């Protein structure tokens, strides 16, 4: 019988030639929660989503979504899921409304229901004014909203969002985040892939970090940040040539040797309490003037760097390799 998990995978695998795109992934997403699948380009996020939405068959392992097997029950499963992809799969030569009505008909909602549902979604996603315009005249943000609306036409219990904000400007991203938050507030289970750490931080209840087709860390955003260790102090000096002097002065406060990065002195702290005052006092005694000082908690960027040894967003080339291998 249905488990408590809306999405459950066991040792999921997919190979493209010699590339192990998904290499033994175990995921469990409780109903009504949002899982962020976080990883760089080419980590296997999209391949995992394609398997879970029945677009690809796995080469090994098993997966159940909404209690249904992604291979054996795929026909039934498709009526219970919604997919919004990173390439905004809406028809640009149809009008906004026509796109949603077509998707409704293909979910077999029936003409009247499909029309009504399209109207509701256009209103909810602030697209009523644009409903009779061809989608090719839409902005990037509007297309993503329409794509998300299309994924929600059948009110699916499980929703897959594959890099929903990739390529959007910051303002459109923020507004799409709000839209996603509203859309999933009703208890929808969501699997969200992203390479943006702030996105996972904001939208996801728990996060699975994926790299080279494997899950390398799992937990809440706070759990993951806790793993990287404590807080740190970041200082910008008025005279950058004093950086090395300041490292000597601040070293007693640090649990690792302070470093400089782009002219910013970074001090991993032994104790957070009173650290700003102490740093100011120590530097003042040595006549080092401070332009800016901040206490910073580790971000998911730090988590990623710590877990994988490389930054999260520097490997643009690999996705293309994965696509070419496919």
């Amino acid at each position: 019988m249905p488990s408590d998990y809306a999405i459950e995978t066991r040792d999921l695998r997919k190979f493209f030639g010699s590339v192990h795109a998904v290499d033994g992934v175990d995921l469990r997403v409780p109903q009504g929660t949002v899982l962020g699948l976080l990883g760089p380009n080419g980590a296997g996020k999209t391949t995992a989503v394609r398997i879970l939405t029945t677009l690809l068959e796995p080469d090994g392992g098993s997966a159940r979504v909404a209690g249904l097997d992604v291979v054996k029950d795929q026909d039934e499963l498709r009526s219970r899921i919604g997919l919004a992809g990173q390439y905004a799969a809406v028809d640009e030569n149809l009008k906004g409304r026509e796109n949603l009505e077509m998707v409704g008909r293909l979910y077999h909602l029936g003409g009247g229901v499909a029309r009504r549902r399209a109207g509701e979604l256009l209103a909810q996603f602030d697209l009523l004014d644009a409903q009779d315009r061809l989608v090719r005249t839409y902005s990037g943000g509007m297309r993503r909203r329409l794509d998300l609306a299309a994924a929600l036409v059948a009110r699916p219990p499980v929703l897959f969002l594959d890099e929903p904000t990739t390529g959007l400007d910051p303002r459109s991203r923020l507004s799409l985040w709000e839209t996603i938050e509203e859309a999933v507030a009703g208890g929808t289970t969501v699997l969200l892939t992203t390479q943006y750490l702030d996105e996972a931080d904001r939208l996801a209840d728990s996060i699975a970090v994926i790299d080279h087709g494997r899950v390398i860390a799992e937990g809440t955003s706070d759990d993951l940040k806790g793993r990287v260790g404590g807080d740190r102090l970041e200082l910008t000096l008025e005279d950058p040539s004093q950086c090395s002097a300041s490292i000597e002065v601040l070293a007693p406060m640090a649990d690792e040797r302070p470093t400089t990065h782009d002219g910013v002195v970074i001090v991993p702290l032994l104790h957070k309490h009173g650290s700003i005052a102490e740093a100011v006092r120590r530097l003042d005694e040595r006549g080092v003037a401070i332009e800016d000082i901040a206490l910073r908690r580790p971000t998911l960027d730090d988590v990623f760097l710590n877990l994988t040894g490389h930054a999260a967003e520097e490997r643009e080339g690999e996705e293309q390799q994965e696509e070419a291998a496919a």
Partner: protein
Amino acid sequence: MSGLAYVVSDTAVIARRNILRIPRQPDLLVSFTIQPIMFLLLFAYVFGGAIKTPGFDYKDFLVPGIVAQSMTFGGFVTAIGLSDDLRKGLIDRFRSLPMARSAVLAGRTLADVATNALQLALLVIVGLIIGFSFHTSAPKVIGGMLLMLLFGYAFSWVFAFVALHSSSAESAQALGFIVIFPITFASSAFVPTASMPDGLKAFAENNPFSTVVDALRSLWLGTPAGNDVWGAVAWSVGIAVVFSVLAVRGYRRAVAK
């Protein structure tokens, strides 16, 4: 609804979507309306005076040839549409929906029947204006039109196959033209085969495209048919069957990545 009813309704939804798109792509609209008319006028007035067609007015001889050739090209709407849908993720969207999977290709090729019908009507009208005339009964004229739509439908599957095996819409189009131009020209479509050198003549006389053109001439002009009409139907059905199987296989391959 039953499974089969869903196949029919899903195919209709996809076909409707593809037809809706056409007037919104003016470049596409031009290439399958203006282009064949231009061909018809160029042949009729540039070459027409120089080509001897014993027993026929050249315009009567030419119109069935141009119409049949246009039907082969009609499928490029499918090639362009399919390449586009694959590249832009529409096919993924369709495949994630609980719709009949066969409806994507079936709806795509079915929409071409509508564009081919429009093309056919335009060519016949312009043909009649410049002096073409039917020499047979209405049922035969209509039979000829239905044969053309069947023949065009078969070539939609050829183009679907080509599109699913090439990297872009442009290369699908180029490949289609490299194959289709020689086949349609080395035939009885534009000049009597008797005027050709021996080797080419043998090819042209056995070219299935000649069979289709000769069948249309017999239905529209009343020329002796022989087995041409049934031969043309058989070729059309055969091409549709073979290339639909190949296209479905290509589709499965194209989406499995």
